[in-house]
């Protein structure tokens, strides 16, 4: 197990107001939490609670309207500061964003090569080693279009890790996968996490997935998004599918569901009201 190098994420009073046609939709309000270096942090919350907004702010795709976000005490996003994406924060997208016009190998090496961090040769050596370690070496010359959903997800995670980021940001990455593939890819992510622990910010709707993966779960409220509660998951690693039926797991699940259920109802009723108007 490698030592963790930095990657403390600090979200302080983050706020975001969208203003399409003067509607003033408050997506995030006074969101504060800390992720310690190497911690696996999972955010759960009902649809439209601003989870993706928060991830986009950390990634540097979107501007905050209040508060700030720091990584290792360096201000990354602030209301008056235009955000900047960087290789220290790699994103794995919900729909996947492997470049379909390039082979798996090129997709995996493109980060370090474009940043000038590695020569193409070094990057290829490193990529082959990493792909081989996770059992993906046979597909390096294929195009992403010919891979299954689970394969694509794994390649995308490998591509992100090739950049040796401080923080890995995953936005519901396994949402479109079937239940069996999902559990395989979850175990794959945990395996990689145990080999190279990184700070991880992971968004999901799936409570079981959250508990299975996380060190800490941040539960958010329905819009405007706020932190409702954080729950610590003290289940020892390495974890595998047997964890899912352990008493400790079920106890945490019970706790998380109680918090989430009322929020989900609120979100559902708000949706009904919007439809009725």
């Amino acid at each position, binding site marked *: 197990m490698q030592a963790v190098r930095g990657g403390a994420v600090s979200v302080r009073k983050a706020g975001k107001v969208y203003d399409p046609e003067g509607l003033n939709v408050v997506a995030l309000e006074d969101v504060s939490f800390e992720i310690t270096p190497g911690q696996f942090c999972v955010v759960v919350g009902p649809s439209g609670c601003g989870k993706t907004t928060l991830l986009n702010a950390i*990634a*540097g*795709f979107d501007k905050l309207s209040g508060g700030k976000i720091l990584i290792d005490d360096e201000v990354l996003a602030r209301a008056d500061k235009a955000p900047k*994406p*960087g*290789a220290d*924060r*790699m*994103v794995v*997208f919900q*729909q996947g*964003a492997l*470049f*379909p*016009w*390039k082979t798996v190998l090129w997709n995996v090496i*493109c*980060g370090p090569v*474009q*940043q000038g961090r590695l020569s193409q040769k070094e990057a290829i050596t490193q990529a082959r080693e990493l792909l081989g370690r996770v059992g993906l070496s046979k597909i390096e010359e294929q*195009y*992403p*279009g010919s891979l299954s959903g689970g394969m694509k997800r794994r390649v995308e995670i490998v*591509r992100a890790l090739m*950049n040796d980021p401080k923080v890995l940001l995953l936005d519901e990455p396994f949402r479109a996968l079937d239940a069996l593939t999902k559990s395989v890819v979850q175990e794959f992510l945990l395996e990689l996490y145990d080999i190279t622990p990184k700070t991880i910010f992971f968004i999901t709707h799936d409570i079981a997935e959250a508990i299975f993966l996380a060190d800490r779960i941040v539960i958010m409220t329905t819009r405007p998004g706020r932190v409702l509660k954080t729950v610590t998951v003290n289940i020892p690693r390495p974890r595998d599918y047997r964890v899912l039926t352990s008493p400790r797991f079920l106890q945490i699940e019970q706790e998380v569901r109680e918090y989430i259920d009322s929020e989900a109802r609120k979100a559902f009723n708000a949706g009904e009201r919007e439809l009725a108007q």
Partner: protein
Amino acid sequence: MITPPIPVQMAPSGPTARTPLRRWLARIFTMEFALGVLSVGAVGLIWEYAQPMGIPFIENLPPLSKIAQTSRQLLSSQLYWEGWQYSLQRITGGFLIAQAVGIPVGLIMAMNRASFETLFPIVEILRPIPPVAWIPISIVFWPTRELSVLFIVFLGAFWIVVLNTIGGAANIDPNYKRAALSLGSKPSDMFWRIILPATVPSIVTGMAVGIGIAWEMVVAAEMVAGRTGLGYLLWQSFEINAIAQCIVCMISIGFAGFVSSQLIRIFGSYVAPWQRR
């Protein structure tokens, strides 16, 4: 973990087993193939014997055997091959200039809002005018007939490639751009490694449609304004009432159009190998 596959009962090999030759024949001589041969053969027979059988309208056409005889004569004449040469030169010239101008214009319009707002009204006013309608003005405007024919061919392929390039480049999944930014793409990387490859399939589609329109235009322009070429030869044959020769020209142009589309398809699978199925 993985159980060995259950042995599958293989079909007994013996006199009933299909040899590779028989399998190959069976794949070619399908019901679809038989129906195709039947329909084409029926049309050929009706055409050949329309005159003795007195079938209305079709009896005015020279029989198929006459066409075959005429094509033997025409194919050995220099006039015919010169026609091919001129038409091919015009198609190649007009089509390539349309790509060389249309692709950059489309890309600039897609990437730069101001240029889009400036140029799009002009495009939308001129585009609905059929290129054929440009022939008289084109003859007045350009110093030589050759240039005016070239211009009409150019117009035939131009609008479609501009629109397809805009459509392709403007509809790139924003997550590809975000991923590229995170991976450290510089603006030049963004253009050459993301925007251009993502647009290539749409450009090829534009070319495939454009080459078809270009052939229509070269024939029309040669009929009206040309002194050479397959379209001119076709019209001249009609003027001297050589209908069989007319039909041979028609078939030649159809064949040329078919070959051009195949060439575009080959080009497409070469520049967009990830789209090969």
